């Protein structure tokens, strides 16, 4: 059967008259993972090549001759079992070579699995203006070959089905709908996945844009001391600008941590105030503070929205304790002085560069430097 195939299928497809003339069957097939494939390479009789001198490679790796079968003087087959997922989305390169290594022909194999139902479809709207959605592929096998995901949406009780067009937000499996979204009307949204091996559709989610609103983090977050109280700091922030016009309520959350710690403490019951006092803090310690916002009651909606990102960290230090201060004036021999001196030197260097001199010297400036130092350490660690 395969021999007949070799004879019938030979068609002199050429790159040019000077390029090798051979044909591989099947050409560019799509195959399921774990399946088997028998491919044939048929070379033109005029080439004077005998098939028993030919060999096969897959992604540049020579395939063992035990997998070959000489079907005719000008036709060599290879059988592959238990195919693994393709190494690249452009397809695995199965190539037939003449004995001296020249390429006679090639076929690109697409080995993967049909898509499974996309899962975890979630959407959010930034300030009620747009809609972003993300999902996760239902299976792993579909990631080996090119699988197209189309996000579709329609108004629940009327309206035509529309497709999201912008998949280029930088993150995979996301789509962005920039405009023309109705409020107070539920949308039905789903994702269709398709590749050469099959199709699948996610469950449909229903949402009102107003129920999935998020916003920008609060701006102008300031942290400052409360007089000389050594265990307290006060935090002030502004309402996110985009929601000032139609936000009836917003709830906020604060988190703070010690400068040298990675553990955040969260203050939940901030309500809709734009300031908060943190108490029970350690004296003489730098704290980093962040605030985020959840828009609630947008246009009378009863549901809570989605928390914004955290604001950029702001820092402040609590005053030193009097008792500690009096005890700490005696430096340890050598060590404390050199550490302090080194730190001061770094601080002054930073002030000269970033704060245009020392005229505005204050504890606030020192705290800003500590924030900057923290960020720089993080960046360095990420690079390393």
């Amino acid at each position, binding site marked *: 059967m395969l021999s007949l195939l070799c004879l019938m299928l030979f068609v002199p497809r050429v*790159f040019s008259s000077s390029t090798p003339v051979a044909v591989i069957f099947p050409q560019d097939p799509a195959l399921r993972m774990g399946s088997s494939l028998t491919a044939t390479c048929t070379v033109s009789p005029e080439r004077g090549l005998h098939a028993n001198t030919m060999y096969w490679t897959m992604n540049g790796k020579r395939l063992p001759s035990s997998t070959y079968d000489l079907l005719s003087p000008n036709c060599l087959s290879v059988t592959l079992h238990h195919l693994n997922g393709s190494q690249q989305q452009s*397809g695995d390169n199965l190539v037939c070579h003449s004995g001296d290594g020249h390429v006679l022909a090639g076929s690109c194999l697409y080995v993967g699995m049909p898509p499974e139902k996309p899962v975890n479809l979630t959407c959010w709207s930034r300030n009620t203006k747009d809609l972003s959605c993300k999902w996760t592929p239902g299976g792993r096998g579909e990631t080996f070959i090119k699988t197209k995901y189309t996000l579709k949406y329609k108004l629940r009780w009327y309206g035509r089905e529309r497709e999201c067009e912008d998949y*280029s937000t930088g993150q995979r499996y996301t789509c962005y709908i920039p405009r023309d979204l109705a409020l107070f009307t539920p949308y039905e949204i789903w994702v269709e996945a398709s590749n050469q091996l099959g199709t699948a559709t996610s469950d449909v989610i229903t949402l009102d844009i107003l129920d999935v609103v998020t916003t920008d983090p609060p701006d102008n977050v300031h942290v400052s001391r409360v007089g000389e109280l050594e265990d307290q700091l006060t935090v002030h922030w502004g309402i996110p600008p985009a929601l000032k016009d139609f936000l009836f309520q917003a709830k906020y959350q604060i988190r703070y941590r010690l400068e040298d710690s990675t553990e955040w403490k969260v203050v939940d019951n901030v309500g809709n105030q734009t300031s908060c006092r943190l108490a029970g803090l350690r004296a003489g310690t730098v704290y980093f503070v962040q605030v985020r916002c959840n828009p609630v009651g947008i246009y009378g909606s009863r549901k809570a929205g989605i928390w914004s990102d955290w604001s950029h960290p702001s820092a402040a230090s609590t005053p030193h304790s009097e008792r500690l201060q009096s005890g700490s004036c005696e430096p340890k021999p050598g060590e404390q002085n050199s550490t302090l001196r080194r730190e001061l030197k770094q601080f002054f260097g930073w002030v000269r560069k970033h704060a245009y001199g020392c005229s505005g010297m204050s504890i606030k400036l020192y705290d800003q430097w500590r924030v900057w130092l923290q960020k720089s350490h993080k960046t360095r660690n990420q690079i390393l």
Partner: protein
Amino acid sequence: MSGHVKNMCPQLTISQAARTLLSLLLVAAIDSVSAAVVCRKQPCGSSLQRSLKLTKLIHKESVDLLKTYKVSQGDMSELFCQMSINNVPDPNISGLDPSERMLSIYSHCKAFLPHLKRVTEQQTDLQPPSSSLLSKLSTAHNRTNGLANQINCIYQTLFPNLPIPPEPVDGPTSVPPSQNVFQQKVYGCVVLKRFKEFLSRVTRELRTLKSQVCTRRTTFADTNALF
């Protein structure tokens, strides 16, 4: 009032028709000119220097482009890139005198463009949308188009009496007909390899041209200035 307007109308009609005709003639004239590149006269040395810098940039990017291409096609030996394919421009610059060689650079740039475009189209189907290969191909196409325009301008400035042949027409013979995926992979590699080699030659050529042509013109201009 209306009689006055009535008296005016025939004259207005005629002059309006004349204006319309003039506008149409102007549009036709502009349309015929717009197909050609509008060049501002620049000093010889600085124009060629700019083109040389652009060529070096495209060449540097073409090295990375070819690497990125090979990685995204999977394991491909150098053999694939050396396969012979019809109609892909060869990288050699031809001609004996500077005008012929400059023309050869220009026509080669133009000749590569539809192939770069074809490779981009093919790879758009083969690669994930986030692939950096696609943006690099697009950049190469745009920059090469820009280089061709620059060379065109320099040529017109240096050799105003020598005609530029009409631009090559994109047709069925300029890019290959539909290919299977393996052929597309090989084709793309051949195009980008030759493209890289071509740019290397253009870099050397522009350096030579700059010293040959601009020096000669400066000498000629200086001599003229004496009289």
